């Protein structure tokens, strides 16, 4: 696996999504581990802007040549923006999973604090994905 490090200011899910919180808003994407497991992404189905999601809801689908994978929202809130570049260039998820390959942005809901408290921080996720990679 390529040596992409997991940003320290992100939080991580057990289903390999990341979330970066800035005040009351957040940006969500797939981790480098997730994109590596999937292989080359060829299709992304995004949530509709305005949709309300709860933590753990399936918000979209990411497909590689061989796999179809649901993506789960790390936190509750309302989708405010999706990464339009991904419809023409889904490979951005492989090339820059923690940056240009982000999936959507949201306005965090009232439960956000509790949602975020359930997520892993960077050192915890680093261990988690290393163990997952051994199986």
């Amino acid at each position, binding site marked *: 696996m390529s040596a992409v490090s997991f940003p320290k200011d992100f939080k991580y899910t057990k289903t390999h999504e990341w979330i970066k919180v800035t005040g009351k808003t957040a940006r969500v994407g797939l981790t480098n581990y997730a994109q590596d497991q999937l292989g*080359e992404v*060829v*299709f992304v*189905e995004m949530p509709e802007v305005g949709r309300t999601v709860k933590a753990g809801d399936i918000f979209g*689908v990411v*497909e*590689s*040549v*061989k796999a179809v994978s649901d993506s789960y929202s790390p936190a509750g809130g309302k989708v405010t923006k999706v990464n339009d570049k991904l*419809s023409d260039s889904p490979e951005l998820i492989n090339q820059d999973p923690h940056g240009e390959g982000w999936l959507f942005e949201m306005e965090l809901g009232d439960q956000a604090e509790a949602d975020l408290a359930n997520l892993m921080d960077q050192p915890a996720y680093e261990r988690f994905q290393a163990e997952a990679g051994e199986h």
Partner: protein
Amino acid sequence: MAEPRKTPLYAMHIKYGGKVIDFGGWALPVQYGAGIIQEHRTTREKAGLFDVSHMGEFRVTGQDPLGFIQRFTVNDIAKGAIGRCIYSPMCYPTGGVVDDLIVYRLGEKEYLIVVNAANIDKDWAWMSEVLKGFPGTNMVNESATTAELALQGPKAVAILQSLTKTDLLDIKYYHCLDNVTVAGRKTLVSRTGYTGEDGFEVFSAPADAEAIWEAIMAAGKPHGLIPVGLGARDTLRFEACMPLYGQELDAERTPLEAGLGRFVSFDKGDFIGRAALLGQNEKGLERKLVGIEMVGRGIPRHNYRVLDAEGAEDIGYVSTGSYCPSLERNLGLAYVPAAVAEEGRKVCVSIRDKAVEAVIVKVPFYKRQRPTKA
């Protein structure tokens, strides 16, 4: 779960960075470092090397190998002179498919039958039953003692030619030659493959497989050869619309429904499944395999349902679907009622409970240019 079996080329998969998975009981690479898309495109544009040692090989000799093989195949094997390879489905009396295979005629009364890995045991049992009617004819399962690799792509001839004194252009498409020395090892070479490209399949003793693989990799380096895994093997065969057992073919579908009528020879005399296939042929097909292309956003996948143009009625299913790396289109093969099986006809594919628009298109999706008649 039992440990997956390793092919004689397992060490090569590790050495070349293969992502090894359990593929129907075999430890084989789904891809190497280049990834499925690059492996696919490189095979189309240059060349790819595949380990297909999991395939099954049965050798048939003795009194009446031709009569025996004619009985369980639907294609006419008698038209094959020594050195011919003939593709044929193998059917149940119902016309449903046991497996699809290639018959290699190696000698006057010597044949090698190459069958799908997942069906080795089933095929062996099926053919052994048929063999009871042919005393004096023998069949030996050589699957465990045969390694097979496939070199495919426009550079395949140049690469393999550099490793043998045999003039490979003498081996025409769907022909084979036994006792060819490749990289100093004894092999059987055939001009066959499962990618839609020109190329060869090379059979050898397991102990020689690694040396042959490494010699081909070295000879192929200046030509841009890379190793290719099962992922691209599937997308390559799919673009070329070559059927895969378990998807396009199974016990419920007949070769006629699968569009393989040209491989069914009603004139060759009786064979297992003939009456059923003849009946279906006379009555007309209820269902046919067609190509579909997505119009709406989405990728059709194996076993997704096909709906009518309004997205209301369930009319069939996708046997294989994928993003196609060379064509950059989202395509599928699907079984639909014969009445709707015409190009340009609109249908829908049910993707995550949504009816997504698609259209019936021509097959094969991909056909290679044949610049030289070789």
